[in-house]
């Protein structure tokens, strides 16, 4: 049957379990019963347990069906996903809680991601499915989480929540620009334009205007065809021209790699939302397990765990001790790459805007 258009998503209330419909908007409080297990209590006295499980974001239908089997057995056929790719099994019957946890544990699913620790890494597609990546996404995420899993399961705790995100290029898909630790794929060489093919597959003026630093100039080829040339010195490798025009590829196996950013957050708790700031300008792509990236993140996390005060997010901690101390303690070399000299061609008037929901009426 041909599709009906514009029907929108299914109505969410049709997917809510009875305990949620009964207590919708009438929850009283919640507790973290143990790592990965939340208990919400309604004004009615009803209780709902959510068991949070980490997973790869890239999963097959067999995996989804396995989640469904588990939810059918223990959760009356209901479960949800979180905004960070975790799975939450929703249990209204306390008698089913421990048996559910046992099944999940036996099947090897990590339970955790609540409270003052690390939860699943928000990430992009990388080499698996993107056309502009400077690195893979699922691979580095798997390698990092293998190393940091104790902070997920609650075996080790941190002063506060620590949110990690990965984006595979400067587009920074996901909240990479506002994460405690961000892993970012970066290009470091200008595009290598196919100047002869370009006029046939792209519009020359829109290719030129796609560049935020005006690094692309018009140039006539020998036969008089209008094409472009690049002023390499002005390029900061954002890849926007490649998004606009496929004749501008910029991926390079040796130049591409990963930068590490720290100190961002999105919540308003204590301090307002903050951007992530550059910590390590470049680490090589070293598949399959990216050891340099894993070690760098582990170093920052362990130092933060030891040095930060309770409830200090990474950014709060660094602001208290000072960036010079951060670089000193982590042993990360400070370079001229850390000093911002990109003005995007325009002043940033928005720096004076109130970018937090914290204000007085």
């Amino acid at each position: 049957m041909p599709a009906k258009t514009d029907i929108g998503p299914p109505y969410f209330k049709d997917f809510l379990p009875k305990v949620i419909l009964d207590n919708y908007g009438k929850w009283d409080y919640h507790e973290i019963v143990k790592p990965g297990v939340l208990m919400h209590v309604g004004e009615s006295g009803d209780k709902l347990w959510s068991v949070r499980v980490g997973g790869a974001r890239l999963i097959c239908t067999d995996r989804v069906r396995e989640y469904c089997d588990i939810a059918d057995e223990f959760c009356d056929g209901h479960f949800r996903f979180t905004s960070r790719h975790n799975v939450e099994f929703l249990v209204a019957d306390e008698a089913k809680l421990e048996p559910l946890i046992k099944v999940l544990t036996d099947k090897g699913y990590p339970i955790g991601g609540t409270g003052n620790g690390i939860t699943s890494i928000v990430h992009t597609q990388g080499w698996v499915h993107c056309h502009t990546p400077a690195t893979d996404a699922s691979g580095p995420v798997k390698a990092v989480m293998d190393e940091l899993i104790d902070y997920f399961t609650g075996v080790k705790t941190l002063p506060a929540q620590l949110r990690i995100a990965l984006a595979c290029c400067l587009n920074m898909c996901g909240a990479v620009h506002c994460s405690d630790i961000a892993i970012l794929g970066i290009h470091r060489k200008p595009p290598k334009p196919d100047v002869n093919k370009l006029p046939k597959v792209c519009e020359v003026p829109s290719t030129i205007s796609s560049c935020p630093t005006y690094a692309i100039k018009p140039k006539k080829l020998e036969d008089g065809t209008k094409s472009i040339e690049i002023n390499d010195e002005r390029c900061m490798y954002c890849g926007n021209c490649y998004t606009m025009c496929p004749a501008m590829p910029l991926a390079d196996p040796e130049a591409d790699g990963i930068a590490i950013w720290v100190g961002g957050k999105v919540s308003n708790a204590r301090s307002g939302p903050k951007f992530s700031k550059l910590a390590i300008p470049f680490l090589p792509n070293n598949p399959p397990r990216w050891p340099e990236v894993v070690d760098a993140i582990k170093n920052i996390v362990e130092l933060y765990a030891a040095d930060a005060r309770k409830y200090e997010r990474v950014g709060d901690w660094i602001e208290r001790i000072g960036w010079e101390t951060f670089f000193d303690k982590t042993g990360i070399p400070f370079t001229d790459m850390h000093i911002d000299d990109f003005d995007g061609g325009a002043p940033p008037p928005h720096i004076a805007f109130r970018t937090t929901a914290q204000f007085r009426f």
Partner: protein
Amino acid sequence: MAEESKTPLLDELEKGPWPSFVTDIKMAAKRKPETMDLLNQLELSYEEKIGHWKHGGIVGVMGYGGGVIGRYSDRPDLFPGVKDFHTLRVNMPTGWFYTTKALRTICDIWDKRGSGMTNFHGSTGDIILLGTDTDQLQPLFDDLSEAGFDLGGSGSDLRTPSACCGPARCEWACFDNLQMCYDMTMEYQMELHRPMWPYKFKFKFSGCPNDCVAAVARADMSFIGTWRDDIQVNDDEIAAYAEGGLDIQADVADNCPTKCISYDASSKKIKIDNSNCVRCMHCINVMPKALKPGKERGCTLMAGAKAPILMGARLSSVIVPFVPKEKLEPPYEWFKDFIDRLWEWWDENGKFRERFGELLDRVGMRVFLKAMDMEPIPQMIEAPRTNPFVFWWPEDVETSGKEAK
């Protein structure tokens, strides 16, 4: 002897305690041999340290301009199974709550029409069905539609709106952000499915200032639940936290950003100077049984966030400090009028691929406020300007008309 693996590098990622995507691709490939080429091509990327997907490609379904991301392998000679391997974005149920019945239906359709690989979920929140042939796109959409699902946004359109779990599973939800997210998704189906703006536009609805969907960082229009009366305090529960060992002075009062909480250890009571509270949520987060947001609830409307492309990242900033809960319920007349006028201004003035926030920076907040007939208020800024280069409105500079000599 077992057959030698063709993906020795990726096999390394099946080791270790965290769930492995490699294992999942292999599981799907057992039923769908062509999906193995996804892993084989990725192995080549791991060897060569470079991606192997070609640039874009225009594919879609009848009647829509978005929702499908075209993807082709640049080595179809080596990996015919992923020669064309397009992605469908499917609009998730608001708040990501599912029944197993609905998910099994999606799995059945996807196993019939595609690779068997998915993302739960993509960065914007959609269900991602990862990889199918060009000729399967329309039948896939037809099947999904029949099962009650629709596509999400892509390109220069309204991207799939998303919301945290809200009042369904959180006591801090200050408005029904799930209902509003759903209603706005339904209201703007035209804008969601047919790209016609300068660039993308996102709505994200967070129930409280903890902002679990990163609205302030990622949405052109960010809804952050808040309240404007006093924090609700339960003295008995405060005392219970203290008796349970919580150091209320150090953990709560000292962490208050405006130091508006004072704690008396002898009576185990707190006092809050609510007029100085900026509703950061810290004290409520630490003592959820004792403290709750006030009763006069609604949301703060913030606007303009985006990731770095092109002129650098922006956070949303305050546009309307408080919209009462009653205005965030059907029929939403106030908001519909507001967003229609905002979109019209952006559409009229925005350059190609210019996000709303970038336009705000380029022409100035004062121009936006005038166009929207809104008054400037101090909550919109951190601090007044530090430079003297003021663009006076000529009509505001009244003179006697005498020319200076």
